[in-house]
């Protein structure tokens, strides 16, 4: 039993990264029907900005956080401007292909510039250490990461449900033309959505760096897929659902690996896809009711 609990606790850190990314994903997905495959690169750039600020230039940690957020928002808006805005309205598949193209461009560019090796990510001191509960080990960092994610998640759910901005977002996702006639500035709301999504990407990038202590140029590939699946499972546009299913996926794949023979550990990526196919075949609308749409 303690083995089981240990596995669940170990998955919390990874689950937080997935949950934040899934929340960002589900917002762009819900509002303009865009499956932003380049979101993993926004996340990666966020982590790299923090890495450069903290490890390379030896600046304090809060500057790193600021750099990460600015980097993520700049790259997110740049991708939106260059790759998505000109093809908006020409169907989900076109948008998906351009986002795939943008993802491959940014990823290869950063592999070219920074090479694809693991880079040490410096974290503040207060943050390491463990608590011992009987024979269960709890890392301080997983608790901190979990709390940050939950706080952000509550703020986000409040934003989408109760504020004027959130109502405008939901209006656009129902029908952008009618919202426009009712006085919603669609263009502005879409940009704000992208800023929020990139913000979440940047935070997730820092959390990844704090969790694993290293960053690399191709790190966006796996979380982006997991987060996409979490957003589908959570119901498209449902922020709460996305966060919960991010945790479900992370805990599920952690347990999947824990109870598998050790030579099959490499099969970890299969778990999320199996869940994805099961959900799409038996309950295509997702586990939770779609919130935005």
């Amino acid at each position: 039993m303690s083995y089981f609990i240990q596995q669940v606790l170990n998955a919390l850190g990874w689950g937080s990264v997935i949950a934040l990314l899934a929340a960002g994903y589900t917002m762009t997905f819900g509002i303009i029907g865009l499956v932003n495959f380049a979101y993993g690169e926004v996340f990666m750039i966020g982590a790299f900005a923090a890495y450069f600020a903290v490890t390379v230039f030896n600046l304090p940690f809060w500057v790193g956080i600021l750099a990460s957020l600015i980097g993520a928002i700049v790259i997110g808006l740049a991708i939106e401007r260059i790759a998505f805005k000109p093809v908006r309205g020409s169907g989900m598949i076109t948008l998906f292909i351009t986002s795939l193209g943008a993802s491959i461009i940014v990823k290869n560019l950063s592999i070219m510039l920074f090479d694809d090796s693991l880079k040490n990510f410096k974290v503040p001191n207060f943050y390491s250490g463990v608590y011992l509960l009987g024979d269960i080990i709890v890392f301080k960092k997983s608790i901190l990461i979990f709390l940050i994610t939950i706080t952000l998640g509550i703020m986000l759910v409040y934003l989408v449900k109760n504020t004027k901005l959130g109502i405008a977002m939901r209006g656009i996702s129902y029908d952008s033309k009618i919202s426009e006639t009712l006085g919603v500035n669609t263009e502005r709301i879409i940009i704000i959505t992208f800023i929020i999504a990139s913000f979440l990407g940047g935070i997730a990038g820092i959390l990844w760096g704090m969790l694993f202590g290293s960053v690399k140029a191709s790190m966006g590939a796996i979380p982006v897929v997991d987060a996409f699946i979490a957003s589908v499972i959570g119901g498209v546009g449902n922020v709460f659902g996305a966060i919960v299913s991010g945790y479900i996926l992370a805990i599920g794949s952690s347990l999947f690996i824990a109870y598998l023979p050790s030579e099959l550990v490499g099969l970890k990526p299969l778990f999320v896809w199996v869940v994805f196919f099961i959900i799409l075949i038996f309950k295509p609308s997702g586990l939770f009711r779609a919130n935005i749409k």
Partner: protein
Amino acid sequence: MKFEKKIIGKYILVIGLFFLTFYLLEKILSGFWLTLFLLFGINVILAISLNIINGWIGFFSIGHGGIMLVGAYVAAFLTLPTSFKKGIINLHLPAFILNIQIPLLPALLIGGIFGTITGIILVLPAIRLRGFYFCAGTLGFNIIMTTLAENLPNITNGAMGLRGFPAYTNIWWVWGIAIFLIYITLMLKKSYIGRAFISIGKDQCLAEHMGINLLKYKIYAFGISAFFTSIGAILWVHLILNLFPAAFSLTFVFTVVTMIVIGGMGSVSGSIIGAAIVTLFTDTLAPLEEGFSFLGFQVPQALGLTTILLGILLIVVLIKKPEGIMGEREIFHKLFKEKIN
């Protein structure tokens, strides 16, 4: 009678021209240009067979890498020298596979059949999922196949990959199959089956109302596409001479998708043009990745440069000319019209 003679004469002329051209090309081309020409042919095969799904049936698949992987591995077991297969300790294959080495044609057929079976698995998501979700599902298929190939070292030798293939691929195999594929797809486009494919792509429900059995024609389309995709992959493996699980990953499929998007979805001649552009583009720019010195400046190594440029090309095409170069039209339209009437 007179009419038939004219057609037979035309066929003989075309076949004669084909043999003459490729005989001359085989004599003239060598080294880099020969490889480029062979890659062009293989890309034509891959692009046209992907176009059957993505352009005609209207299901956007990016999971053909999984099909290629199955076809290529099955053929690899059959054509690898027995000494190499026995030399790998990890490999636990049945004895009869370890002890045989067969020529290319049966390997192509057997690999193609296994690829077709894999392709028909892709019909399952195509029954339930529409549009983008199918796209995501095929992406998953691709990742699942690559992961399995990496993690079953008893069958695939894991991430180490297989080497020591006999260099079977030559102009006759590649371009013979490519021209055969071009011919049958152009014929198919005018036939009942091809029109059924295209009408499914235009409007699935309407096609069903017109009496087209959706499941049957989806299976046909995925079968044809998967068969030729795996043949293309097998030829590619016997040209490059090594095979590892990440060979047909998303980047490879992305290149093929770029070809059909540039050329025009649903157009056979568009696929050929797209394959020509992309092959020339990637293989002539490949030396730039290694770094070189230009007028005294040392240009550093830039791995992945061609992929980046390909991505930029794809986005520019999608913004400026979303239907691609050819749209759904064909160059050979007039040439073939006569034969069918």
